[in-house]
């Protein structure tokens, strides 16, 4: 195969622009090259024998660092390897003077972190780096709980927490940083108390707000790494874009039912979330955990993968999940990996970005502003609130209640509706009577809105029960469990 030698290295390769070697793998080809031209070795490899950070080696059009087999990747005679030293610089004159001195550890801390200190890969310097590190956790829910807990235990010096929510009893199945006594309390206060109890040596910075385009850059500026534990697409794109724009790695995790994903986005040379998903899914296509459910243990699994990646980035050890998407399947208990590539046409991290400031992410994700409390019409569908429906029902007015949730939800709670899951509605529409008014409900009102739109199209008289069975439980009958 051919190896293309860049101009500066030709003086060490007998002035040749191309060297031909016989090899079965990338590693062998590089070995053959340095065997034939030993002087090249010190220019390509560090003293520890690792490829120098500023040297990129490409097999055809792919960086060998991102090949799944790396140096062991098999090569054919028609392949070519290119050695490309990096090109960068800038006017930044403020000499990055000596990196600020790392904070020292007191005897209590030395005792606390002894199992880290005796690992050569961490050691005193690594533990001091952890103490100097500032990590922002966006969300203190399912992913944020284990993430913040383990980062606190590991000795990360400053942990920022962003959340605006209060603890709900339905959180406790997975959000292990909160306890039963915390129900009704702001998540930030509950999380701070647990983290401080675990590790009093750390600083906690609380941001009691929703992360927004208006505040994200300001919040991010004080941190080195951002860990994304959000549960919606708007915030996920916002976190990604703000990370790219501020040059901070985005340690990403997401969960759905029994499956999870994790990766490290927005590093200098790696892909970002938009390289993977340039556009959000249409609203409503991917159910949230509140709609679709989630195995409580899963965020633990994924959050701890995120925590591990954060620690590795701080220490500069191991192989971070840059350019790799880890897929976690908890039912099959299998971990798979997809290779991700930086998209040169990515609107935010590509070579000619079109997104150079934060945008309106609700609009980007197609989210309509929340309807006013009483919105008689949404998309042409008449809405009925639970109180009015109750009155109508008590007055004996004849309408047919259709429940479009799943059978397993029906088993948890029901209010006397006729069950046809949304997915079956099209084929079972014949079971419904066109002459009776139909009131459709689901858990919160989202799926029933879709069902109502379909039925109205099909010639039925329909209304959507706003707020669903959850609103019924809250406002009409607390004996109906909320789930």
């Amino acid at each position: 195969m051919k190896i293309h030698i860049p101009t500066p290295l030709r003086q060490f390769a007998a002035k040749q622009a191309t060297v031909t070697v016989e090899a079965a793998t990338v590693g062998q080809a590089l070995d053959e090259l340095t065997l034939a031209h030993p002087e090249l070795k010190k220019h390509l490899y560090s003293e520890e024998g690792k490829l120098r950070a500023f040297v990129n080696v490409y097999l055809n059009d792919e960086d060998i660092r991102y090949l799944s087999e790396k140096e062991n990747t098999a090569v054919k005679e028609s392949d070519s390897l290119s050695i490309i030293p990096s090109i960068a610089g800038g006017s930044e004159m403020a000499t990055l003077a000596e990196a600020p001195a790392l904070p020292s550890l007191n005897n209590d801390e030395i005792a606390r972190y002894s199992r880290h200190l005796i690992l050569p890969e961490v050691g005193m310097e690594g533990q001091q780096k952890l103490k100097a590190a500032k990590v922002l956790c966006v969300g203190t829910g399912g992913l944020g709980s284990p993430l913040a807990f383990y980062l606190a235990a590991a000795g990360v010096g400053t942990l920022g927490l962003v959340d605006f929510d209060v603890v709900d009893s339905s959180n406790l199945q997975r959000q292990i940083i909160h306890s039963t006594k915390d129900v009704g309390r702001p998540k930030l206060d509950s999380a701070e108390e647990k983290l401080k109890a675990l590790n009093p040596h750390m600083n906690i910075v609380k941001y009691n707000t929703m992360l927004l385009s208006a505040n994200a850059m300001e919040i991010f500026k004080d941190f080195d790494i951002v860990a994304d534990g959000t549960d919606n697409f708007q915030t996920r794109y916002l976190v990604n874009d703000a990370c790219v724009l501020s040059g901070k790695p985005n340690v990403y995790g997401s969960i759905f039912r029994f499956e999870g994903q994790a990766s490290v986005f927005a590093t200098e040379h790696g892909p970002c979330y938009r390289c993977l998903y340039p556009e959000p899914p249409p609203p409503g296509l991917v159910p949230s955990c509140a709609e679709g459910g989630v195995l409580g243990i899963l965020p633990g699994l994924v959050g701890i993968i995120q925590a591990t990646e954060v620690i590795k980035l701080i220490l500069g050890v191991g192989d971070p999940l840059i350019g790799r998407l880890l897929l976690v399947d908890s039912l099959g208990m299998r971990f798979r990996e997809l290779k991700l590539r930086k998209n040169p046409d990515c609107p935010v991290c590509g070579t000619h970005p079109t997104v150079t400031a934060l945008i309106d992410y609700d609009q980007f994700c197609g989210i309509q502003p929340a309807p006013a409390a009483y919105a008689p019409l949404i998309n042409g569908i008449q809405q009925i609130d639970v109180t009015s429906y109750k009155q109508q029902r008590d007055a004996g007015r004849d309408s047919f209640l259709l429940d479009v949730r799943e059978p397993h939800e029906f088993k948890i709670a029901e209010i006397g509706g006729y069950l046809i899951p949304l997915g079956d509605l099209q084929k079972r529409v014949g079971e419904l009577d066109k002459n009776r008014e139909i009131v459709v409900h689901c858990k919160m009102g989202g799926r029933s809105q879709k069902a109502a739109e379909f039925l109205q199209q099909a010639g039925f008289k329909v209304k959507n029960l706003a707020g669903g069975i959850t609103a019924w439980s809250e406002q009409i009958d607390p004996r109906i469990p909320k789930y």
Partner: protein
Amino acid sequence: MEMKISAEIYRQIRQHGEETYPHECCGVLLGKALDRGNEVEVAIRAGNTRTDSAHNRYHIAPQELISIQRQARERSLDIVGFYHSHPDHPARWSSTDFNEAHWLGCSYVITSVETGVASETNSFFLAGTGEDDKQFQDEEILVWSERC
């Protein structure tokens, strides 16, 4: 050393810096490396991937470099240098420029762009045999006019 460049290409690289102001522009110079210095025949614009701080940093994506290198091979030219701009900063190399310079024997051309207008342009030749002894040497820019 001296770097030879046509008036047209010289104009192009200075104009590139004005277009991207207040951000840094960057690009690659193709030509021939001769004993007396580099001769530039083509300038190729590159995208600055440092969107996080494009006003004072630049970085050319390796993929882009691979394709530029392929273009060079097809035209029997070599990569002989790189250019970038310093928005509202002098046309001198910075410590970042030096630390990130790894193409020995290449010319690093810097144009100072003051409030959107290209002012001084200087070239620095990266001399030495490796990371330990590399150094930037001032080199003259010889601008020649193409004849119609």
